[in-house]
């Protein structure tokens, strides 16, 4: 295991930020760390990187206790914690040279240009960082994270503050790091759809506690989820639904669409039924908001002890 947390807790004064969290990140995964703001994601990441000390519990990196083998572990880890901050009065190249010297990167100047090229910043390498846009800073943040050829990189909300195009580019960059450079990635986010697109496994955190952990497919596909159906003549559909097997599944009726609570495998059957009844189905779309997913999970957890 690249990362292993055993019953890790962190108190800030009397506030419990992380509550007996246990998790494992195996080699080769893109591991999603999902939770709303304030759920303890950043605190956990900072503890993994030894920026803050856990109140209790154990953190193992590459099988070794971080507090005893900090240097060993940090040589193999790259990270971008929260927003990317640099020495703004220096150029991107100089920032990376400073950080590279600290990590004792061999052939530093060549490597700096190489990572700037990977993140698409080589043409702006000689510009001072204060002239960079947020997206460029995020890219530079990823560049410094991969500078010393790490085996594991930890990215804390790397798409925060970016426009949709910027978010897409960062996601593609992260995927290429895993496929082209074989780097294991721990990525935190509060966006469920982002995790769905990137992660292979994920853990969901809420109020410092782990709610669920597993592969993204198993977590998203096997549970009942909210599905939005855009259809013509919705009032007529509702009448028919009330006398059908789907009656208990209809949860809300916004203006031009219906919302059902379904398992993923039931979606094609509903589609067939609607068409057989003579309705035109324009779209069927799972609603993947983190909030609704949380509600489902917490609801599920309350009713099902497993």
């Amino acid at each position: 295991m690249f990362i292993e947390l055993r019953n890790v807790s962190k108190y800030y004064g009397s506030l419990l930020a992380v509550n007996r969290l246990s998790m494992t990140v195996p080699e080769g995964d893109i591991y999603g760390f999902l939770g709303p703001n304030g759920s303890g994601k950043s605190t956990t990441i900072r503890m993994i990187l030894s920026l803050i000390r856990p109140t209790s519990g154990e953190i193992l990196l590459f099988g070794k206790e971080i507090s005893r083998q900090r240097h060993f572990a940090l040589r193999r880890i790259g990270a971008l914690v929260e927003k990317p901050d640099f020495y703004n009065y220096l150029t991107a190249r100089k920032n990376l040279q400073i950080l590279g010297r600290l990590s004792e990167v061999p052939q530093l100047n060549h490597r700096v240009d190489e990572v700037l090229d990977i993140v698409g910043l080589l043409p702006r390498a000689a510009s001072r960082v204060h002239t960079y846009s947020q997206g460029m800073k995020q890219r530079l943040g990823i560049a410094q994270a991969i500078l010393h050829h790490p085996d594991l990189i930890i990215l804390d909300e790397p798409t925060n503050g970016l426009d949709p195009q910027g978010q897409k580019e960062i996601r593609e960059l992260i995927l290429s790091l895993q496929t082209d450079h074989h780097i294991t990635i721990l990525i935190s986010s509060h966006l469920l759809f982002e995790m769905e697109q990137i992660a292979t496994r994920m853990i969901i955190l809420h109020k410092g506690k782990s709610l669920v952990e597993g592969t993204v497919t198993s977590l998203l596909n096997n549970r009942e989820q909210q599905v939005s159906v855009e259809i013509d003549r919705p009032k007529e559909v509702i009448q028919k639904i009330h006398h059908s097997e789907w009656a208990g599944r209809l949860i809300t009726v916004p203006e031009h669409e219906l919302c059902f609570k379904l398992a993923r495998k039931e979606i094609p059957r509903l589609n067939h039924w609607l068409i057989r009844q003579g309705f035109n189905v324009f779209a069927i779309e799972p609603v993947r908001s983190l909030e609704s997913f949380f509600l489902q999970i917490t609801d599920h957890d309350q009713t099902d002890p497993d």
Partner: protein
Amino acid sequence: MIRLIRIELYKIFTKPRTYIGFSAVFILVLAIQFGIKLEGDTMMSMLVQNIKDRFIFQGNIINLYLVAYVVLNTLWIHVPILVALVTGDLLAGEANSGTFRILLIRPVSRIQLVIAKFIAGWIYTLILVLLLALLSLGTGILLFGSGDLMVVTNKVNVFASNDLLWRFSGAYAYGILSMTTVTALSFFLSALADNSIGPIVGTIALIIGITIISTVGATLLGPVNQYLFTSYLPSWQLFFQTNVGHGELGHAILIQVTYIVLFFTATLIYFNRKDILS
């Protein structure tokens, strides 16, 4: 460690604020020197008003040494501000700009980082005091020429010009030591804060505050005063007594060194345990 110190020095000397300190010393020294050049005679006649009937003044009284002495007296108020301007930013500046998050995830221990930063900050302080010395004496010789130094305190001491170089060297060396105490204080405050304004203002407020309290309440604080580092900031003046009081000077040096060790150790312990939340 050398690698870390070089990186920290690079960061210090690429920051614009560093040159504020150097520029301020440059401007202040030149301003004082030109002021004395223009109004020196008036100033001198006021200074010796009470003793001019008992002494005969001959030769170049307003010379480089007198001006350097005046500069020393004047600038020991400003130099701590200029020291704190940079050294108060060493740790707090990283916290404020969020760069601890890219720095402390490297395979470098916090203790190594604190030592490297302190040494780099001390080198800045050293350069600042040496610049002060160089400007005072260098431009002083061009503007005023050499001569004997007359120091008027509660008595009048006259030092021959060939007896002065070692006294000034001693005064500047002591100045470096006392400014190292200021460096250690502002560095410690810098570890406590997450922005650099606090340590800079805090350092100056502490120095001025303690000085005022210990002066106003001298009787009350008498026994405590001898252990306060602020009481020994002007001890460079010991070099301008006919016989330098080695015991008094040794005590002053011991107090300064003790405070440097205390502040630095406190910084190491605190920073090593600090949660990086910025």
